[in-house]
């Protein structure tokens, strides 16, 4: 019995349909109920590690049953790591491409796992696939924009770092212009609050009452939100 066979849970079930191996003319789908273990299952219940799950995915071609186990294990990996990966990608690719890039990354994980994953630290491997794909896409787009004289500058690893992938420069510039329209008092309170200062700290530093500080921040928020919204119409 494999590790995946021993997985049982009480909190959530997922019905998986999969096709049994066969050619055209096979009977059809067999509905098989498997239980996907949520990662918040009570302690004491077996929780497969990433490495156990990836081992099951790697054995997918051994039999039809192994294929079913592999899909099941892959879904656990996907749900376990997908949300954090989505957040990572959302900060590094255009908004409309995040889902497609996320999908492509997981397709590559499925494709390359049996041959290229060494069984250690699945998360680091997943992250590397995502980084490489984002870099490749960035290079491809830059190549499309080469000047006519053919001068090329390929991006290097540093282009994936925070300094180069800030895709929200327009948002930053608009907000900066809106901030310039605030009165000095409002601006001081905004910088304090968005710098992690408490109202007590702000009041003491600028000689304000608590009521005054709250009012200034509330007014500034409204003004900034309106200015920001108008700038993007």
């Amino acid at each position, binding site marked *: 019995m494999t590790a995946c066979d021993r997985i049982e849970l009480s909190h959530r079930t997922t019905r998986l349909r*999969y*096709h049994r191996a066969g*050619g*055209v003319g096979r009977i059809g789908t067999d509905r098989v109920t498997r239980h996907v273990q949520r990662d*918040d299952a009570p302690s004491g219940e077996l929780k497969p590690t990433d490495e156990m799950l990836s081992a099951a995915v790697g054995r997918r071609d051994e039999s039809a049953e192994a294929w079913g186990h592999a*899909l099941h294990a*892959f*879904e656990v990996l*996907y*749900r376990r*790591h*997908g*949300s*954090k*990966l*989505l*957040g*990572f990608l*959302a*900060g*590094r690719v*255009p*908004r*409309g*491409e995040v*889902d*497609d890039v*996320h*999908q492509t990354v997981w*397709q590559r994980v*499925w494709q390359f796992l049996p041959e290229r994953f060494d069984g250690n630290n699945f*998360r680091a491997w*997943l*992250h590397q696939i*995502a980084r490489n794909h984002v870099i490749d896409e960035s290079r491809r787009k830059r190549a499309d924009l080469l000047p006519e004289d053919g001068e090329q500058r390929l991006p290097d690893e540093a282009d994936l770092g*925070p*300094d180069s*992938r*800030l*895709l*929200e420069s327009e*948002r*930053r*510039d608009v*907000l900066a212009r809106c901030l310039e329209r605030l009165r000095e008092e409002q601006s001081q309170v*905004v*910088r304090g*609050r*968005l*710098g*992690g*200062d*408490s*109202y007590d700290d702000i009041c003491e530093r600028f000689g304000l009452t608590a009521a005054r500080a709250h009012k200034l921040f509330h007014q500034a*928020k409204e003004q*900034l*939100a309106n200015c*920001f*919204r108008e700038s*993007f119409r």
Partner: protein
Amino acid sequence: MTVHALDVPETEAIPAWLDRHVVGPHLASLVAELTAVHGDAEPQTLEQSLGDRLDAVLANGLAAAGPEGCAALLRSPRGLLELQERVVVEGGSHWDEVASSTGVDILLDGGWKRLHRSIEDDRSPAPVVRVASWRTTVLASLLTAAATVLVMLGLRDLSSDPAPAKPSGWGWNRPGALAANETRSDYLAGLADSAEEWFKKRPESAEDVAARLLQFRHGCSTLILATHEPLTDEDRTWLRGKCRAWAVKLDAHLVALEADGDPLEVRAAADETIRSLIGALRTRATTV
């Protein structure tokens, strides 16, 4: 358009608020906004901001950074992007719990369906077209479209209010949009032109954006169910697969709107989706 930084809570709640942003989809926007507030003159690295508390933060979240650490990250916000990457690779179970509380699971549900289908499609031999299986596909698509309308609008009685998803006569639902007497490339280019009609109206309220999205989504069902006579079998398979993928994305935009998402932000996201599908259609039209 939401300014995420303006939602900053009271000081004691800042660590949990930042935790949600580190695993959420809006961190880049927050970093841009904080950079606008504080400038970028002397950025600190993540290690400089957190010092020897970094390991504790990776294990237990930003509560372990203390007020000084959180303030350092707010003032030098690019460290938050570094932290996001470190969390993907090294974050403890705390970050999994935070991620699951952001409601992104619903996007993963749709994403898993697409992924599962693509894995099975890559494995299966080319399907033999049979009338019985076509009917099953039609029925499944109709049920999916109907269920989407009901869930998104919370309809109880279809006779009581007009359904916004009725064909409105634009885009792919416009009479003549799927003309059978065109060449293959003109047909695909025509589909792209029809999709461009999305940009002719720019709704701003949540209700109007939802109605426009549902109308476009209905157009996807029209494409999935149509016979596409000018196209080859390979084109039809490609087009229907793409329509299903686009339909999942449009459903996700509707979900975001229903979850009190900013209508202009949702519309902007839908714009990107639709520009992407227009590009795919035009590219396909020019391939031999």
